[in-house]
């Protein structure tokens, strides 16, 4: 839990710099994934709002474009969450261990 690493020349400022760098990396990953989710969702909603005929294209009996894309939005939400969790468990947690 202690941030001060014994035996280091300037431990406090090193800890601060490391923390700042890790915080920045985390925020970048979080923002990129958030933007991906926002683009996917509002891309879908824009089609729903402004191009209903396209979204209503019947691909085969019982299947329209929106019935393909809707569940895909749901699946991609989970996939993006999974990507973040895998990254965080591996990279972020390792960085946090170094900080401590």
């Amino acid at each position: 839990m202690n941030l001060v690493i014994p035996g280091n020349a300037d431990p406090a400022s090193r800890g601060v710099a490391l923390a700042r760098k890790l915080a920045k990396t985390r925020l970048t990953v979080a923002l990129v994934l958030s933007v991906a989710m926002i683009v996917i969702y509002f891309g879908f909603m824009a089609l729903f709002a402004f191009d209903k005929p396209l979204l209503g294209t019947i691909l085969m009996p019982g299947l329209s474009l929106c019935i393909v894309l809707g569940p895909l939005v749901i699946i991609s939400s989970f996939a993006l969450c999974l990507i973040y969790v895998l990254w965080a468990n591996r990279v972020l947690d390792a960085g946090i261990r170094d900080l401590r």
Partner: protein
Amino acid sequence: MGSSTLSIGFFFAFMALTLGITYWAARRTRTTEHFFAAGGQVTPWQNGWALAGDFLSAAALLGIAGIVTSNGFDGMVYSIGWLVGWPIILFLIVEPLRNVGRFTFADVVAYRLRQRPVRLAGAVGTLAVILFYLIAQMVATGSLIKLLFGLPYTWSVVVVGSVMLVYVLFGGMLATTWVQVVKAALLMGGGILLAFLVLTHFDMNPLKLFAAASEKYGTKVLQPGSKVVSGQWDAISLGLGLMFGTAAMPHVLMRAYTVKDAKAARLSILYATGLIGVFHLMVFIIGFGAMVLVGADAVAKAGGGGNMAAPLLALTVGGNAFFGFICAVAFATMLAVVAGLTLSGVATLCHDVWTNVIRNGAASEAEQLKVARVATVLISIFAIMLGIAFEGQNVAFMAGLAFSIACAANFPSLVLSITWRRFTTPAAVASILVGTLSSLVLIYLSPTIQVDILGKQLAAIEHQWWFVSLRNPAIISMPLSFAVAILLSLVTREKNANLAFDEMQRRILLGPVQPTTSEPAEAKSAA
């Protein structure tokens, strides 16, 4: 009715189990840490199920299935909107929340800022969300129970309000968590079984189900329509409210505190997203199943605005016992959701308003617990009274309003306090208040209130200068709230907030260094 006796039997089994849990939890609830956060002892899997239980209201099963049955694809627009907020919670909110806060989202917003004004404003935003969502839930619950069990409306509201009071008052977060877990398991189990039974009629192939639906009602049921969501920008605005409102719902955010660390919080959001996603896909099948196997007309005739689609489908594919089971699951669902909402309202009243504003952070554990219990009783009585007062009123808009306020009032200040060094107290307060007020004013001036509630003619008011054609205010109120926050931050200076930013960033990663130190003191020492 034989099925009614059966469903009442299922219902009593659920009550016996959950009240048993409450008795067990009550003996373990001795501190505020237990009462509001289950002592941080909930595992990620339990919390994932509890989050799903907290979030999936009766509207998610009965409501969306009904919309799909009568309108086809359009019901899925709601399902998707309710899910896409979860990744946002995971990426931007849950880890800072877990590591910086203690019981409420205002803990995080107020961390670097002046405690009292920010917490008061945060309480306004949170309580407005909870009030409208609670009214919507209570009224829906009263009419659904009347429909499903034949119990009079007033009694339904009183029973739900009283049972929820018992869960929260005695069992706190521990009991509420387990009630959510049991309910979510029943809801998922019932939903999956129902969808499975539907698919057995169609060679286990959803496409055959959709094809049968379009043969019976035309291909329009597979295509987006404009009956459920009218207006182009209104659809976008609805999407904003659902996505960012979900990401700032107080009862969802509060669950970040029930697990032991940020990693567990992160995992629980992943599990919840998976569970809720699977459930929504099931509901889509259930809605189409009811359309084909029960018939849209039969569902409409059963009353309740389409809410009977799933129960009637259960009756068709599984007989009386399954009908009773689904009705009981719906009842359990409503109970669990109102309990979660009430608890988050209590946390705001006790932790933000009483402890940190009125008592300036200096309230003993015993005093806080007493205040929490008084607040629980007050909110429950309030919820029961409002539920009865609004009988028969069209309150469907209130759930949407709750999401809009969460999106415009809570989300901007939460995200800016985590990510932006320059963010200041006046900006946070103004952003929360502007988000709340603008949502209320915009919805009052929209056809939702003016036409649907006040009964004015659309033609008579649509050329008035004050008329707002959008039914969903988020597309205006959320950017407005962000703009106010950014402008005020740029014109004001707050040295302590600026200096504490690095310390907060480190705490977002590492968590509280010394958990015993109180937050305001820590913020000051960093400055």
